[in-house]
């Protein structure tokens, strides 16, 4: 059980005229090895939630455990928390600052006082984990790299802390389709081969539906729905009411059902929907 959130509430600027409740009594357990897709409209509380998970924000009420450590307790070392939970912000490449890629990735491990040998080892490993080659990039300035490569370097900086849980806030924002596919492939690799627990915040239903083992849907600071992508995408009306869409394949299946065609209600991948349509075309019994 790496993460347990209990009755988490967060109010920004409490007691002032601008007070706003960003999280409202959120409870959630995330098991080892899950790949969670965290969905929600802008302002739904997604980012506020993930910022609590690595100790960046303190709850107004409620508790969070990571493994057996209650990170919301007073006096818990933030270094300890960040060794467990790594958070990759939106557009993380804006935070690169060192002269070389290797130095940038080494920044975190150095800060926690690891030996030079250990640091070098971790830098090499992290560069490999994000799909870059040490000899190609280590001594280059991060600012000479392409946008997609810079983003990988920034992610490597978080991986070098060897967290158990990796949180990525909109990791594909602003990338072109090829860059997006390759970052998604890298996340899949970290999860499947590296066995990491991953929480990914995303707006892109098509991306998330192919990747996540479970979806968590937020709206107005509350957790409104959680389940497998198949379960969640059946709730088209609920999702639309909170400003979210569903993958287009699922939308098509639902529209065909509404037209009277006999299709299973829980289809959401393009392949499934295609097979179901081809099966319909062969069948004699049609609604016409």
């Amino acid at each position, binding site marked *: 059980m790496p993460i347990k959130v209990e009755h988490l509430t967060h109010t920004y600027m409490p007691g002032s005229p601008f007070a706003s409740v960003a999280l409202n009594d959120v409870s959630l357990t995330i098991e080892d090895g899950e790949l969670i897709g965290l969905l929600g409209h802008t302002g739904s509380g997604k980012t506020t939630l993930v910022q609590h998970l690595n100790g960046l924000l303190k709850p107004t009420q409620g508790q969070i455990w990571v493994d057996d450590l209650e990170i919301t307790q007073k006096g818990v070392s933030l270094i300890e928390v960040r060794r467990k939970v790594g958070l990759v912000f939106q557009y993380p490449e804006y935070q690169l600052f060192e002269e070389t890629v290797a130095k940038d990735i080494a920044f975190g491990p150095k800060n926690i006082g690891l030996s030079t040998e250990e640091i070098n080892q971790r830098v090499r490993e992290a560069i490999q984990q994000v799909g870059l080659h040490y000899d190609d990039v280590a001594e280059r300035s991060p600012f000479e790299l392409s946008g997609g490569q810079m983003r990988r370097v920034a992610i490597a900086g978080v991986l070098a802390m060897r967290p158990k849980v990796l949180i990525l806030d909109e990791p594909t924002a602003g990338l072109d389709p090829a860059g997006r596919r390759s970052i998604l492939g890298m996340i899949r690799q970290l999860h499947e081969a590296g066995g990491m627990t991953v929480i990914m915040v995303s707006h892109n239903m098509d991306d998330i539906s192919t990747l996540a083992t479970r979806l968590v849907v937020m709206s107005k600071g509350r957790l409104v729905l959680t389940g497998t992508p198949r379960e969640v995408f059946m709730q088209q009306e609920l999702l639309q009411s909170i400003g979210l869409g569903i993958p287009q394949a699922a939308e098509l299946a639902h529209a065909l059902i509404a037209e009277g065609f006999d299709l299973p209600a829980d289809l959401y991948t393009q392949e499934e929907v295609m097979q179901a349509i081809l099966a319909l075309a062969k069948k004699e019994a049609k609604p*016409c």
Partner: protein
Amino acid sequence: MEDTAVTFPLRIQEVSYQYEEEAQNAVDHVSMEIAKGSFVAVLGHNGSGKSTLAKLMNALFLPTEGKVLVCGMDTATEEEVWNVRRHAGMVFQNPDNQIVANMVREDVAFGLENLGVPQVDMPSRIEEALRCVQMTDFAQSAPHMLSGGQKQRVAIAGVLAMQPDVMIMDESTAMLDPSGRKEVLNSVRKLNREQQMTVVWITHFMEEAAVADRVIVLDKGKTAMDGTPQEVFARVDEIKALGLDVPPMAELSVKLRNAGLELPEGILNVSDMVKELKKVLCPSK
């Protein structure tokens, strides 16, 4: 001569652009004529030359070879630079980098002041620009209190107030969430339809390109494809080989056709797909 300047407010003639210290041209002998009132989407992977092309369109960059004509004016003519930028307005990617004032209406006024528009004409122009992007109610608001989509619409209003002939949107929706993207796309599409505003829409989002009149795909600084969205997105394999995607329904329709269903070409969205599937599955209806 006068006529082409009106019917094609943007003409790009054999244009190349080479960055200093780069061996290859970022834009390489590109020619295109953008018709008045058209909505043209430009696609291409990172490094394909899209943004360089955009910057050539309003004299932020000058061609190393060839000519760019904005309403008949050569962008390389030094005295015309401000005129060129008034006729071809540009909206960039990051909404936070484009807002300069503390109040929405002042931000929209900023460009007008720079152009030397008489004070008496400003209020009506500002009002009209804000109305076009449905931001009238926010005229007195502080920009930092707005959502990303709202900020981008303010940036668009700032360009609109200058009454340009062409609007160049350089990945202006890249940093927005899906609803913000929709807001901005709808506002600009409306301006295009109702006021014949010519729009060049540079994007990574295929579903945005799907609503354009014309799609141009760049690769290695050259035009790789040019046609209607229906024509371009029917070429699924080619598009993917260029590092791009096709809208999910375009891809599905090609797969279904290959599997033997008699669907027409050019399906780009769910409602078209439902309509065509009904015809195929229920021929009697």
